[in-house]
């Protein structure tokens, strides 16, 4: 692991991470039937709202302006190429999670798409598979895998910078970080990819967040409810999800 030089520190950190994840998962009882208000799922609301306000400031000062500049400066065609490359790089994680979820169809689709798009699609710049076949890849992550295994989302958690999450999905994020082979590349690659992902994701959600701030009387509550519903739909695969 490039980002962990001293082995015992590394081991200690991993052990701490596993312990933390176990504790968090233990709290992820299956979701309650009555979803009134989603309030039940937010025991840390005060802290979460604090982090949300912090995120709003960071977003207003950095993320949103950068995303808007990106959308303004880079033509649609270019942004689509960036999205394609990033999406292609997630395929190993999608593959792993499809296998873990017992979904051979999606496992095959993600593997097939990764191999062909990485080669014929020139490192994923072009969606060769999407353009030539009807194959659809559902985006799958370890948070969804845990959901398929019967874990509820647990407490809603607002992560600094990263935004809405849940106890289950935070564990998922950590697991996906470790299983993603591209996180073991050089630091420069990992950092560049992370920065591009952030900008790409923020640019994609500009319309959504504009809409929420235009119509919602309590954006925090709207994002919370929307996030939990969306993740629920993704676990159940009730709507086809685009790959990132």
């Amino acid at each position, binding site marked *: 692991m490039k980002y962990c030089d001293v082995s015992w520190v590394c081991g200690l950190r991993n052990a701490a991470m596993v312990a933390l994840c176990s504790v968090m998962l233990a709290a992820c009882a299956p979701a309650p039937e009555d979803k*009134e208000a989603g309030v039940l799922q937010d025991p840390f609301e005060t802290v979460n709202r604090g982090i949300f306000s912090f995120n709003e400031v960071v977003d207003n000062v950095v993320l949103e302006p950068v995303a808007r500049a990106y959308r303004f400066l880079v033509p649609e065609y270019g942004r689509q190429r960036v999205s394609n490359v990033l999406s292609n790089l997630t395929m190993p994680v999608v593959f792993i999670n499809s296998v873990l979820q017992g979904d051979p169809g999606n496992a095959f689709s993600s593997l097939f798409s990764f191999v062909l798009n990485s080669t014929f699609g020139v490192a994923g710049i072009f969606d060769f598979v999407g353009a030539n076949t009807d194959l659809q890849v559902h985006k799958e992550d370890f948070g969804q895998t845990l959901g398929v295994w019967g874990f509820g989302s647990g407490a809603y958690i607002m992560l600094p910078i990263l935004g809405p999450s849940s106890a289950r999905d935070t564990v998922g994020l950590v697991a996906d970080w470790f299983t993603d082979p591209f996180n073991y590349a050089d630091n420069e690659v990992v950092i560049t990819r992370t920065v591009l992902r952030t900008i790409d994701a923020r640019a994609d959600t500009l319309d959504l967040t504009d809409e929420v701030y235009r119509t919602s*009387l*309590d954006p*925090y*509550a*709207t994002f919370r*409810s*929307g996030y939990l*519903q969306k993740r629920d739909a993704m676990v159940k695969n009730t709507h086809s999800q685009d790959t990132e």
Partner: protein
Amino acid sequence: MIVVRQWHILLVALVLCVLPQRAQADEAADFINDIGKRVVAILSDKGMADAAKDSQLQMLFKESVDVDWIGRFVLGKYWRTASEAQQQRYLDNYSGFLIKSYTSKFKEYTGSETYKILDSKTDDQGRTVVTMELVRPGQANVLVDYKLRKEDGKLRVFDIVVEGVSLLTTQRSEFASVVSRKGLDYLIDQLQKRAQG
């Protein structure tokens, strides 16, 4: 042939059971398709002023969506504890707020968006879900579920689910949060402000 006759009875029962649902599913799909066509017709009418477009869209929304029922539902338990005057003031402003937040979305229409109706299903409680795909050039397609039911023989929409996120669920959660933190009158004032602003 007793066996054959029994089969017939079963078949007839099955058809009687399924047919009305099928019929309503088709009717609902046509209903949504018809609204879609009318929205596109209004939006692409170059001779119509923006104000006229707005009021036509608002009228169309009002007659096809069960706004009052949605309003009561999303207020949840606070509806029951509200005074009659509050209920009335809430509903008046809620309908203005909801209609405005939906119809102003259409301002983004560029003329190149299209839609297809993918599916229509009716469950045994008479609720129909019509699934529509919005196709926007250069952007990801959006799946929208319209939930409808019949009231006095007339179909009306009672929930709109965009990519798995339901209007009813989201707004109920949002309103509960606002009312529990700042009270019902604050919520109504805010709705009024949005409906007018």
